[in-house]
């Protein structure tokens, strides 16, 4: 067996298989939600396909139960790594009562779960970056061993919130890792109209390390983010990791990407699909064979199918619940 790439990264066989499984789960959740959207059962869908390696690779670098996740709406695969189940994903998709993120209050893909250290997110872009900075400051203040990660697209770097978070993290050497999932588009706006210079190139200006990696390579994504997490944990401050990837589908089910990018471009990107690529690697190092691949795939598919059915059957919130939780101690009409 040829010298592998993962041992030096401290990744064991079980890790790799789990990572692979999460990537498949995410992909199948995505395909399922599009199917439900076509059937008119899911009015709004935010796709993840194409980002699985960047998300699973970066997410795997953090310690569950200890570290903190400040994700954005694209992060379905990351959320599975962080502890949400496909069923949770579908409960959110349908806006059901038991949706752990918001009890059906927010649009799908607005993640949150206190017990899983997933900080509730909103729609306004990049606001989570400052929450991450505040939480990281608090962890440092309390001398807690915890690293905070925040994820965003390259479009998110344009907002003042991102600038402020980078600046504050740099000044206070916070245990914070900025992960940019650069898929080259903010809805229809190409990176060239979004980012002067480059995302990773901005790190130096804030006095922190920056790196650019192949977001379609789950191992490289893991490697770069793990190094950043280790630095953060060692008290060496924040880092900015830019992972280049691509979004296979439209921005959301409300979008039509044919208005701004060519089929050729999309096909070319799909040819770099991170999942087959990782599978190929796992086969090359004899971690997976046909039988195992078939088995993992089958199980993932069934779980997604069952979870989405259960979620679909679940209850909607009671109308009157809409008045709850505006304040902890005030009733409102």
């Amino acid at each position, binding site marked *: 067996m040829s010298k592998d790439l993962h041992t030096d990264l401290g990744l064991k066989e079980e890790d790799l298989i789990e990572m692979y499984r999460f990537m498949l789960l995410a992909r199948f959740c995505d395909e399922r939600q599009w199917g439900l959207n076509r059937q008119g059962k899911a*009015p*709004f869908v935010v796709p993840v396909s194409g980002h699985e390696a960047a998300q699973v690779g970066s997410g795997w670098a953090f310690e569950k139960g200890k570290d903190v996740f400040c994700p954005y709406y694209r992060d379905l695969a990351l959320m599975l790594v962080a502890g949400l189940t496909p069923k949770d994903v579908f409960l959110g998709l349908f*806006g*059901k*009562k038991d949706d752990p993120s*918001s009890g*059906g*209050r*927010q*649009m*799908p893909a*607005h993640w949150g779960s206190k017990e899983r250290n997933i900080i509730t997110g*909103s*729609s*306004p*872009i990049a606001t989570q970056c400052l929450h991450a900075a505040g939480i990281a400051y608090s962890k440092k203040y309390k001398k807690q061993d915890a690293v905070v990660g925040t994820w965003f697209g390259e*479009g*998110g770097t*344009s*907002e*003042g*919130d991102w600038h402020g978070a980078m600046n504050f993290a740099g000044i206070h050497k916070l245990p914070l890792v900025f992960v940019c999932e650069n898929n080259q588009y*903010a*809805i*229809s*706006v190409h990176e060239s*109209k*979004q*980012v002067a210079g480059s995302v990773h190139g901005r790190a130096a200006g804030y006095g922190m390390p920056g790196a650019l990696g192949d977001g379609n390579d789950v191992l490289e994504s893991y490697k770069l983010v793990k190094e950043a997490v280790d630095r953060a944990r060692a008290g060496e401050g924040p880092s900015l990791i830019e992972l280049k990837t691509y979004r296979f589908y439209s921005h959301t089910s*409300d*979008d039509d990407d044919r*208005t*701004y990018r060519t089929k050729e471009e999309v096909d070319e990107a799909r040819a770099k699909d991170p999942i087959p690529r990782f599978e190929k690697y796992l086969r090359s190092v004899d971690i997976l064979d046909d039988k195992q691949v078939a088995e993992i795939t089958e199980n993932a598919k069934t779980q997604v199918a069952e979870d989405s059915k259960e979620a679909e059957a679940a209850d*909607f*919130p*009671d*109308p*009157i*619940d*809409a*008045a709850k939780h*505006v304040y902890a101690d005030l009733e*409102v*009409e």
Partner: protein
Amino acid sequence: MTEKNVVSAIHDTLMDEMKRDDRVVVLGEDVGARGGVFRVTMGFVDEFGEERVIDTPLDECLIAGVAIGLAIDDLRPVAEMQFADFIFPGFQQIVQEAARIRYRSNGDFGVPMVIRAPYGGGVHGALYHSQSIEAFFAHVPGLKVVVPSTPYDAKGMLIQAIEDPDPVLYLEHKKTYRLIKGEVPDERYTVEFGKAAVRREGNDLTCISYGLMHHYCVEAAERLAKDGIDAEVIDLRSIYPLDTEAILESVGKTGKAMVVYEDNKFLGVGAEVAAQISEHALFDLDAPVVRIGGAHVPAMPYAPTLEKWFLPDVDRIEQHMRKLAEF
């Protein structure tokens, strides 16, 4: 005359204005190749080029601030906020800069800019794609805030906004985009700001609203009419300047007033309307002023059961109208 819906009226008008005057430029997120997420600038980039149809970075502070600079240099920017809910990073530039530049420079500088913002609920947009923002901005001297609710007004008020020497926040209710159709004259015309429209005459009560709610109010009024109750229905169209005269005249006639708005009730536009009635028409009133507004919760949630709970609908408006009529 051509029949159009609200969004096509806005699209066509903006296109015509850009053809007329090359000082008019549009900027915002996805206004280029995408033609805007609601298709208002569909085809613009092919017609006018990328320099005049500016796909901006994802930063509303930038959009507002750059638009101010363009306007100061005598262009006529029409900035798009993709959703009204996302205007807030630009709040300081709009409220502290655009609104105050004429005043603080003693009239030396002006900011002839338009900010278009799709707003409002009933579109399964949940907390962050359903908000109403008019109250924040109508409170600010130096700004004009208008809310056309018909294709006819959409055209006339957009042209008025572009010609206006001062910053105008032009609000478009997302649900009216395709729902509301009407005849639109082919020639160019403007609709003056500060003039409400009495869409339905009546003597029994006055119902004041704007945007989507206005259409619900008309529908509710038609239902009452079947039972011989005649509500006068006023579409404010312009929040600032506000047509106090039209409101007082109608209330003077009917003696009963209700205000309907989907924004949060507390300190929403209905508060100002009710306050002005209580200041200037108190002795005309035969019944307390009725305010129907959104509950004091942060915009409507996503789940259909919850969204329905939040948004005033025709039934709820009808019930209140009947109660008020019977008072």
